[in-house]
């Protein structure tokens, strides 16, 4: 196990370095930073001076090494929009709000999907099964930015039950964004739970459980679900990472000022250092979560470590 952990950690470090490299490449696609900072009306001399100050007149590989070194220490350039503030700090203060939203969505996802998935599997091919599977199919097809707008239209414009915008941890604010964010993963996890349960419901130990007169509930939840859950743990873990990425649009709809909204508003303001920091933070969190999920999975299912 120790060996497996070390291997996975080292691999993740290299992936993070790759992420920094990707951010460097992407930012170099966006044109000359000096012109972006000074605006289109700046004189050629001013741009030249700025290029010198930022080290842009140095060869690309020197810039790359410097960028890599800075980024590892969490240093990106200062924000262009909020003068004098470190881009990384700005992004870091926004990140917990995104994590809270993703966490709320994850809880919703797990509760709803497991319930529906188990019911559908137990009542295979019944009316309930067909209805749940159809809803899941529709749920996978709804663009969640549209779902968010429809929820606002119905529950906040018409009924006034929930707020349509703003960040707060009271249910009045977070229920609609959490549902919006969770909808596509709910649909997917429901289908996976159903198929996972169907796999194990036909196993011998389930029949044994029933034969020795255990209650159906004990058989389904105690024996079948426990075995079906192992692969689902991976999916749920990875979904937390995906929710962080998916939050970009949801935050925009509900003006939830997390790192996703920061990213979009910084793109609009052409504040590229903040864009870099925001992209880096989301991707790094994603890599870390994947690492934790892999290690957890290896703990649950020892066969994995051998591969």
């Amino acid at each position, binding site marked *: 196990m120790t060996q497996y952990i070390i*291997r996975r950690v080292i691999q993740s470090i290299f992936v993070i370095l790759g*992420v920094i490299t990707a951010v460097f490449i992407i930012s170099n696609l966006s044109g000359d930073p000096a012109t972006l900072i000074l605006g289109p009306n700046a004189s050629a001399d001013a741009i030249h001076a700025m290029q010198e100050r930022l080290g842009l007149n140095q060869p690309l590989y020197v810039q790359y090494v410097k960028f890599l070194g800075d980024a590892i220490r969490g240093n990106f350039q200062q924000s262009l929009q909020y003068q004098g503030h470190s881009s990384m700090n700005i992004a870091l203060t926004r990140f917990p709000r995104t994590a809270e939203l993703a966490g709320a969505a994850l809880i919703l996802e797990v509760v709803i999907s497991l319930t529906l998935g188990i019911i559908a599997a137990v009542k295979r*091919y019944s009316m309930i099964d067909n209805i749940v599977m159809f809803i899941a199919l529709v749920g996978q097809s709804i663009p969640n930015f*549209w779902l968010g*707008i429809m929820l606002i239209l119905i529950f906040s414009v018409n009924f006034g039950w929930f707020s349509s915008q703003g960040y707060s941890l009271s249910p009045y604010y977070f229920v609609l964004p959490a549902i919006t964010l969770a909808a596509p993963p709910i649909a997917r996890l429901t289908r996976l739970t159903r198929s996972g349960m169907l796999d194990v419901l036909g196993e011998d130990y389930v029949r044994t459980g029933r034969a020795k007169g255990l209650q159906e509930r004990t058989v389904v939840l105690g024996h079948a679900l426990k075995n079906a859950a192992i*692969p689902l743990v991976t999916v749920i873990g990875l979904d937390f990472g995906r929710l962080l*990425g998916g939050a970009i649009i949801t935050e925009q709809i509900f003006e939830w000022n997390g790192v996703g909204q920061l990213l979009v508003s910084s793109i609009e303001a052409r504040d590229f250092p903040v864009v870099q920091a925001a992209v880096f933070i989301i991707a790094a969190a994603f890599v870390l979560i994947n690492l934790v999920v892999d290690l957890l999975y290896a703990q649950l299912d020892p066969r994995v*470590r051998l591969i």
Partner: protein
Amino acid sequence: MNAESGQSATTAQARAAQRAEITLASIKERRSNRRRALQMLWNNRLGSIGALILILVTIAAVFAPFLAPADPNHGEIVSRLQCPVLTSCPRFGTDQTIHGSSKHILGTDQLGRDILSRIIYGARISLIVGLTAVAIGAGFGTIMGLVSGYYGRWADSLIMRVGDVFLAFPFFLLAIAIVAAIGGGLFNVIVVLAVASWVPYARLIRGSVLSSKAQEYVIAARAIGVRDMGLLLKHILPNVITPVIVYATFGVAAAIIAEAGLSFLGLGVGGTVSDWGAMLADGRQYVGTAWWLATIPGVAIMLTVLSINMIGDWIRDALDPHLRNI
């Protein structure tokens, strides 16, 4: 190989599950043959409904100039914000109630443009972007997967490590980051969505190539002197392409949603073209006063994506019976 462990763990798990599924299926088949047949029929019915919707959307896209009742980009300000036919709404900025007219079946937007016409033209962007982005992404991913799986060694390591970095970004984040740097536009959006999606195809193909490399038909083909290229394209590819086709179908649905999402954020195709995501973004500001602006393009996106997902389920059932329950 070690970098793959997370991924192969899931595949090993899936394979074990599949094996259980097959034995299980044979038992269950006897028990509930009739129910099973009903289920297949239901799936097929969904598949044919999906095909029907997609054909209608495709016809709308191809024949847009003949089908659209009005110019999608021309609006008269006097007829702005009219509601769809059979509904009523207050006249913009007054207390008067007006009824939707059959002149604009789906109503008009904030500039007085006919929404039905914009929806019909919008189908073009969605389909073009969805299909070409996936064709490029899946094509590139397939080539990378073939190279990686067949030649192994440094090519394999390089491709898979680069793939790891791509997978370190949530799909939509990568798309946004690149569009933010290189700008929007039809061509850029297609390229970006292709770039953000090639890795799973490469991994799928690589895995299948690795396992089929040792199989008898490949060894036999090599023994009779088939060259690398011929072996890859004529013998291995047809045997490993099935999961790619299934995955690509769902990929089209995902690409259409992603394109609309980019447009929604103002990072999409842009310009004056009708685009469902951009219509949604415009309509969002009127959500309290003119519900149809945001509702209708969303329904268009959902129906199109739903139809493709239905077809995807259908194709998967037909091509790959092992996955039937997922």
